[in-house]
């Protein structure tokens, strides 16, 4: 086994310290008694209490959850369809435009996407609210889903699907029973990506939200522009905790799944 050199050990330690220290400091100071965020005055969970009794934050969290659930689910369906088109449909009229529209939103500055969607909604007279944020989030996250799913579809062995068709499956059943279970991990990670992108988005939501549909990032934004606050530290800690738990659980699950698959393969070889 290779030993890790001093240089590599140092750069890894410093690198990960840089990535994690700011968040660790944030978490520690969310348990600070003092209202002055940079002065430590003893351990307290009172900021979590004030956060939980802040109705405006709870309302914003509810709006954000609704938007993220709806938009990531629609985006997963549309994005998977778009991935099937990109990988499978072959040539059709307007294919270049189609793939351009899939890849362009990935690098498009959010201010442009937000501005253009807002001008569309105003142009067609659609009232801004939860519905318009869902439309906006679906549009930009479906492109991320289709990139994730199409990278899995490229390596998919089509003969499996052809076998199902030969054995009398309808094309839809072949997709449902053969293709979908195989690409399912990519579809799920696409959904997760769309969900977090939607949860996280400030700029596009600011352009497309109405006065009655403030999302959590918009709420956080208007609070942090005034400076650091212990309440926001507490909220950030909760959000970091949820994400960390989800990511660690997902990686443990994929690890266990791949171990099980290896065991299955070994069993199949022996049989």
């Amino acid at each position, binding site marked *: 086994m290779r030993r890790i050199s001093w240089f590599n050990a140092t750069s890894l330690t410093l690198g990960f310290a840089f990535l994690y220290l700011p*968040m660790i400091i944030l978490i520690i100071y969310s348990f600070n008694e003092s209202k002055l965020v940079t002065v430590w005055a003893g351990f307290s969970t009172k900021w979590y209490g004030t956060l939980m009794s802040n109705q405006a934050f709870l309302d914003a969290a509810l709006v954000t959850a609704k938007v993220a659930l709806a938009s990531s689910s629609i985006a997963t369906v549309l994005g998977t369809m778009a991935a099937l088109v990109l990988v499978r449909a072959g040539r059709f009229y307007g294919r270049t435009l189609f793939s351009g529209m899939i890849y362009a939103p990935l690098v498009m500055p959010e201010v442009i996407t937000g501005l253009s969607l807002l001008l569309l909604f105003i142009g067609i007279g659609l009232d801004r609210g939860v519905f318009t944020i869902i439309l906006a989030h679906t549009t930009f996250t479906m492109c991320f889903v289709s990139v994730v799913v199409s990278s899995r579809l490229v390596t998919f062995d089509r003969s499996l699907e052809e076998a199902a068709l030969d054995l009398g499956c309808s094309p839809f059943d072949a997709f449902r029973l053969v293709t979908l279970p195989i690409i399912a991990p990519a579809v799920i990670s696409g959904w997760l990506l769309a969900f977090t992108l939607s949860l996280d988005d400030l700029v596009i939501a600011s352009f497309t939200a109405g006065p009655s549909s403030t999302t959590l990032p918009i709420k956080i934004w208007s609070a942090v522009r005034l400076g650091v606050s212990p309440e926001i530290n507490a909220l950030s800690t909760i959000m970091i905790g949820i994400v960390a738990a989800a990511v660690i659980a997902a990686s443990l699950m994929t690890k266990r799944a791949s171990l099980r698959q290896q065991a299955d393969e070994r069993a199949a070889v022996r049989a």
Partner: protein
Amino acid sequence: MRRLALIALPYAWLLALFLVPFLIVFKISLSDIATAIPPYTPTLDFRAGWQGIKDFFSELDFENFAFLATDSLYWKAYVSSLTIAFISTILTLLVGYPIAYGMASAPDHWRPTLMMLVILPFWTSFLIRVYSWMGILSTEGYLNQLLLGLGLISTPLTILNTPTAVYIGIVYTYLPFMILPIYSALERMDGSLLEAAEDLGCSRLTAFWLITVPLSKTGIIAGCFLVFIPVIGEFVIPSLLGGSQTLMIGKVLWEEFFNNRDWPVASAVAVVLLLILIVPIVLFQMNEQKSREAEQ
């Protein structure tokens, strides 16, 4: 028939909610500001028939673009966005490469954990990660407390609301985008090439320059574009960390729209920004194409 439905649904969605909005932005960038709802003129009136359409087109002009070219605020903002994006890309590369290199040379059983540690911040809210630096960099912040406590400085440093804070924020939030492509290029590298070079009398540093760097070139290029392109239009980082000193075009567009309520000028700013971005986006696609071909 089924194929047609499969293509038509996502296609129609993207046309209606991606392409058409851009055409609207382009159209409004040719209009004039007005005190009306919506706050620009002309608006297309189909009821006036052919004459209405003709009037509509005759009133569109490139006045807003001429305005952008003459008012120094705008071109300064474009130049400063490009400069900040360029410098911060180099800084992110300098910070990210050693980390990616360290990951690629770590023992095999460490790698999944190291990967997860790089990806985890990427899933955490961007806004919160930028915000976490406000408490560190402010005048009475943790960094100044530490440096004063150690006796390294006698008066607190002003870092927050300066370009330095923006560079720190960009390097911090975009680091995973730089590390991951470089790591995946380095991971594929054949270690015996380095041994061969050393056997043939190369020093370790020369071997690094002659073998490791060229072989990770596609990863470096991909990482640089993944940082450079989105940073040009960045809004959150300059607004929270840059203060009024830092001029970036994403912030100018936002203020033009929300504070000045000048929709035609905001649209013109967006159109020009898009034109600037086309060059790096096309170069990035070409690099991706090349690396895909190299893999096959």
